[in-house]
């Protein structure tokens, strides 16, 4: 069966394809759509990986001071798919395709840290640097708060924008799993985006999405970080 959604995605309709996939809900897993949905998720997260690999050395060039709480970028390895299969079995259901293929193709990132323009210490602005923590660690954290897994629970994948800036804030960004949808809400993120739309916005702002809509954004640094990134 032709991958109609992938064809649309490749022709540039990325946002509308993901909107349609998200609207399908669990139906994205039916035979009619599944291969196509996986192809789109896979392509999207390969682009995300490309973007991450471009941004990390650029941040280093800019003298960005990573907080070092966890690796700046821990790439997914060859066993990622197998490990994710096992994780999905353990939690009693699938991850949304977007999250699954993020972990399968990208891995985890932690760009929390300081930079005089991008994320100034004690400054009035926080750029919400991209963080997607390792799922195993996140699940272990969630297990402490739930009565054991499996069962639907919130997988905490990143601190909220304020905590990223070492300030008291709200609940961590999370995704409720298991969830058979292609994409799902990124809970406790102010714009109530899905994961893919959050990532899209993040890369459009060089990994610092909170600068969107702020006329005082650090133009030189953001333009440098986002140069040559692929659209999600």
């Amino acid at each position, binding site marked *: *069966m*032709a991958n*109609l959604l992938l064809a649309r995605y490749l022709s540039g309709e990325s946002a509308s394809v993901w*909107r*349609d*996939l998200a*609207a*399908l*809900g*669990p*139906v994205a897993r*039916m035979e*009619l759509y599944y291969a196509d949905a996986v192809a789109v998720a896979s392509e999207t997260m390969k682009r995300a990986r490309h973007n991450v690999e471009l941004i990390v050395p650029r941040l280093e060039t800019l003298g960005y001071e990573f907080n070092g709480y966890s690796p700046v970028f821990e790439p997914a390895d060859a066993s990622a798919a197998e490990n994710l299969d096992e994780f999905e079995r353990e939690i009693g259901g699938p991850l949304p395709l977007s999250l699954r293929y993020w972990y399968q193709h990208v891995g985890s990132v932690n760009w929390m840290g300081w930079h005089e323009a991008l994320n100034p210490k004690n400054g009035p602005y926080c750029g919400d640097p991209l963080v997607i923590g390792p799922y195993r660690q996140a699940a272990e954290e969630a297990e402490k708060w739930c009565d054991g897994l499996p069962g639907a629970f919130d997988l905490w994948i990143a601190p909220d924008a304020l905590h990223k800036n070492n300030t008291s804030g709200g609940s961590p960004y999370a995704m409720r799993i298991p969830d058979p949808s292609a994409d799902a809400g990124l809970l406790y993120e102010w714009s109530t985006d899905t994961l893919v739309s959050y990532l899209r916005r993040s890369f459009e702002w060089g990994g610092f999405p909170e600068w969107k809509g702020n006329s005082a954004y650090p133009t030189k640094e953001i333009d440098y970080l986002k140069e040559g990134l692929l659209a999600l």
Partner: protein
Amino acid sequence: MPLAISTVRHNLDAVIEQLTALGYKFDALNVSEKADWALEVRLDHAIAFVREKRGKKTSLQTALNDPDLSWIAEENIILPQRFYPHPQAPGILRRDPKAPAKIKAFETQTGLRVHKSLREWFVQCGAVDLSGSQPFLNPEHRFQALRIAPFEACAAGLSGSLLPLFPADPGCWKVDVATGALEDGRDVLDAVDQSLWWAGLAGWAQVGDAPERELAFVRRKLEGVK
């Protein structure tokens, strides 16, 4: 020669089943109801009465079909959605067991004879509303889906010998009561079945970018060759 009503009914059920499988969001199942507390209390007491009479484990559906609850149909009460798929519950398809009597009364009152196709539709199928959305089949309600109101609502809109099939919509199909033909000459059952070929979204027949993948999925369960 018009289609057999059994084919139309089969195809209607098949389209509803396939649309449901595709995650189609039926508007009829997505209405927030205003609670009618007087009705709720009346129903609770009546159902409790039937269970007292027939046994505590009497199912809700059995209780609703008990002669002591015949007032639901007699008073033409539309039950809250939680009673779906009881015939008096709102929803996508609602067959009216009183349709033959209503048609007879209509014929007596108007002096018109209701054509076989039309009669069969209202007796075997009833009211249908396939309005809804799905990202590919009907994105953002692009097309008006097949919908036919209950017989009494159609009858209330009678103009001459023309019966509007969804009076709330001025552009709805109008059928000649005596011939069962729409204004374009098609038999009403043929028209319904042709609409079902397009998953109840006949607008796709007029445009070139129909979602063939989804339509093929729906059509695989349809009877009859188009």
